[in-house]
């Protein structure tokens, strides 16, 4: 397999940065999944589409708006009516889902190359993300495993909370470098480490 080259390479500077007074309050890294796949069902076929996702990935996503699940290697969440994002560290999930979801159920769109996945973890993750997105990141309003779609200016972003202090962000690849730089700048105040 040919490696998927990161869009961030020249600006991805591992190590500790920003204000070091309190150490690093957050950690940032690119998760580089092998598969990022969108599944969209026809109205009324949401159940069948979900069943296919859950079967393909051995997950248990429910039909509620924004509902999601995750494991060590996979995650899935709804981000629009009848629309889910399915992420797998391994390549090939697109084909697996295409095999399981027929035309009568919905459609599968492979976005493995088109989105850049960034994780932000740490006690100040909510604070830093609140600089960019008009979302309430408190645990009550944004529980663990839930997904949301949002935007900061031109940066369209999908966000899944994967721990009380961790969020996984999916941004368009062509914007990823600018977004990463913005994220790093926003994190300087609290100190951050790129892993």
């Amino acid at each position, binding site marked *: *397999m*040919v*490696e*998927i*080259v*990161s*869009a961030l*390479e*020249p600006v991805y500077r591992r190590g500790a940065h*920003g*204000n*070091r*007074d309190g150490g690093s309050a957050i950690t940032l890294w690119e998760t580089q999944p092998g598969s990022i796949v*969108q599944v*969209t069902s*026809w109205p009324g076929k949401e159940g069948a589409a979900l069943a296919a996702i859950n079967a393909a990935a051995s997950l248990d996503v429910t039909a509620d708006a924004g509902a999601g699940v995750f494991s060590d290697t996979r995650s899935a969440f709804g981000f629009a009516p009848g629309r889910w994002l399915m992420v797998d560290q391994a390549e090939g999930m697109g084909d697996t889902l295409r095999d399981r979801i027929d*035309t*009568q159920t*919905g*459609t599968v*769109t*492979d*976005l*493995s*190359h*088109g*989105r850049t996945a960034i994780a932000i973890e740490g006690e100040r993750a909510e604070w830093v993300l*609140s*600089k*960019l*997105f*008009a*979302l*309430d990141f*408190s645990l009550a*309003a944004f529980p663990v495993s839930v997904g949301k779609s949002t935007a900061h*200016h*031109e*940066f369209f972003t999908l966000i899944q909370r994967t721990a009380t202090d961790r969020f996984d962000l999916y941004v*368009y*690849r*062509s*914007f990823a*470098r*600018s*977004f990463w730089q*913005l994220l790093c*700048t*926003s*994190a*300087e*105040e*609290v*100190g951050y480490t790129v892993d």
Partner: protein
Amino acid sequence: MTAHRTQRGGRIDRSRIIRFTFDGTAMSGHSGDTLASALMANGISVVGRSFKYHRPRGIFAAGIDEPNALVTVIRGKLREPNVPATQIEIYDGLTVESQNRFPSLSFDVGAINGLAGNLFAAGFYYKTFMGPVVGPLKGTRFWMFCEQFIRRAAGLGRAGYEADTDRYEKMFAFCDVLVVGSGPAGLAAAQRAAAEGKRVILAEQDGTLGGALRWRSATIDGQPAAEWLDTTEAELRAAGNVTILPRTTVWGYYDDNQFAALERVTDHKSAPAIGEPRHRQWTIRAKDVVLATGAFERPIVFPGNDRPGILLAGAAARYAAQFGTLPGRRVAIFTNNDSAYEAAVALRDAGAEIAAIVDLRAGISPAARDLARQAGGELLLGHAVTNAGGTKRLREIDVQPFAGGTITDRGKRSIVVDCLAVSGGWSPAIHLASQAGAAPVWDEALQAFLPPAPSQRWTGAGAFAGKFSTADALGGEFEVDEAEIDYAPAPVFEIRPAKKSGKSFVDFQHDVTASDIRLANREGFQSVEHLKRYTTLGMATDQGKTSNVPGLAIMAAARGIPISQAGTTRFRPPFSAVSIGSLAADTHGHFKPERLTPMHDWHMQHGARMYSAGLWYRPMIYGAGGETIEQAYVREAAAVRESVGIVDVSTLGKIAVQGPDAGAFLDRVYTNMFSTLPVMKARYGLMLREEGIAFDDGTTWRLGEHEFLMTTTTANAGKVMQHLEYYLDCVWPDLRVHVTSVTDEWAGGAVAGPNARKVLEVCVDGTALDNDALPFMGIVRGEIAGAPVLICRLSFSGELAYEVYCGAGHGTHVWDALMAAGKPFAITPYGLEALGTLRIEKGHVTGAEIDGRTSPRDLYLDWMLSKKKPYIGSAMVDREGLVAEDRVRLVGIVSLDDRPLNGGAHIVERLEDEPRDSIGHITAVCYSPALGKYIGLALVKGGKTRHGQRAHISDPLRNRFGPVEIVSHHFFDPEGSRMHG
């Protein structure tokens, strides 16, 4: 330490000396001082000059309402003008300059304007400077001559041209209860909400919490107010559900309880910490909000009321009690209400001598009498201050008996004082409530506008709601011991001695006087808005916080109507001025994101000069060894025609159109047919707007029975996506079609030229590439260097050409492989300029021709209009205006003088006519290596009918005129034999 610093008291840290400079003079103050209190402590009486008459002015207020003491804060090369000294917390190294004075604050030549005050009355600009009707200064010339002097004289502080390199940030916050203001009302509200477990944000515009608790005397639950404040603040800080934001002004109340607030994060520090923004712009979404914004004290209007040394009584008390600074040694009080008596006591307690308390009222409350006794000094009830003397420092005041609105000369006397503390009553700070949408209500008893009934989810508390006592502000549950004074003022706003004795100011900063308001009335500028606009009352940086109500009252009196009928202006955001940087937040210095193709780094490493196309960066040319742009693109374009070139086309919009009805949907979206397109074939399509105007074009590839890959132009990708989504959601929801933007999923490279197939044959695995396997507009899947690719044989250049798509993460890998495979054929990377040249030679249209005004017929694309089916635009494309004879239509033009053509030049039939009648314009130009000529595309009236005719370009802006021949836009290989070959 100075004559004006009190011996003790105040919430300042006397052990910490802070050094700053004012107009170049080194001074010092204490931690806890504002610049205003520190200047006062240093004995500075004149702090600024007024706008129009350049009158010397001193500190008048203690808060955001300060009209006079505006200064410029200087940090390195950066200047921040017009900052109220009352809002600046001093820090070591603070450097400030006074403003609007020349040559110096103490001697200002502009003060000469004051001598001709009657000439410069309200509206004088409108009545003169028109200049002569004939001669060299007619028209606007005389005015413009005068204007340059007026402009220089006007304005307040000077901003610099140096780019501001500080950081600004945004922050979104959500809460159950936002409390605006941390005076007693705000603190109590925050405490209550916190106890109920609500998520609370408490915003305070000052650096410290407490509002009036910091200077008014009262006992709360047995504790002195200041102690209660400290305890309560500590409790709130300890609670997990309260966010306290000091130095944060809530300045905007927007729809649906969204608030804009400015936090001044580092303005009070000598230097910011790493990563710390200067300002943070908060957008707060609050379920409920408590407006506890307090009230502004009003001045009383009388002749000479702007002398340095005259200030608001509440402010005087605050300087004494909070800052341990005396505004004067020998102080008189002038009031129409009880609250100033508290101020008198505070000043007295801090060490000032109270010379007299002059009260317009004949009788006062027992509490006020008590306070008067404590303060000492003469109590002059039924008296008014009728004049004030002293230029750079108040020297004396004139006092006369006052009864029933009349001043009597008998009993007139002068009192020597260096400070006059004035109170004309209080105006609740209702600005945010007014922004939220409703008109305030005039309260006759309090002589003030009270907040309207809420139109959004807010409640009011404390002085904001007309509840001025500490007990009322805190609410019922506290035991409060305070002077029980009466806050209702006498309804007197102006003192008008019979004999005119000087200017009586209403709006201090803008030098609007009471006579200006009466002049406005005489001239019919009576409505509040006319008053404001004609006299500029309330338009200064303080937005009339002290002047609005007195101004309105004087107008009402002049008109002989009650104030309630005179109306009030609507308050608009911002409540107080906010830095433009904070509103731009993270975009300051980073205006828009950069969109990069997967091969961006390769282009940069190979000498590409980049061109910004919307947010994208695309190679314009690859500069080889000092070539000009023209030399580079001619070389690149020639290489394509002669052998092979490669261009990055990743920026083209790409949309996955999926579902059983995808073909039917495309038939409606495109003017031509797509449902009949075979799988693994592509077709060029044209989209119109409903009006029948060309919208976008591109090729769409059928990858499966139910799966299409649509390409759009780079510029319109977003618009087309939205267009498709709109029709699927709002017009044809029954169609089972999904659209997804996959622009970023694919890297695309177009390999073009007679040797294109040979290049691919070297590197593509898994598929044949011959004419049968991959005919024109055919598509195949294969692999290049192990990466899966999708190859479509289509041509924008007119050459044998292939678009090779692969996953974006494989983009550079595949590009490298193509470059390696092309090496024997001298494969040449080419940029937008060469791409443009090749397309002009072929007569293909782009955004320059599909400009939102041209119809498909104008572009000779009518062959693409299907007669077999309706499509978006089909019903309107034949309207009379769209088929008119005189429309401009697409042609080619050839320069006949062998000189370059210019885009944007016009075409005329004859150069001799004056004015020349334009028959069209040039949309795109190039030097054509294939033709050896300068050519262009143009939109010209008559279009095709002019082929073979001579015309002229007329480009007066660039002084380029010359003959051209109008020809077909298909310049090169019109039969298309090269791309089919």
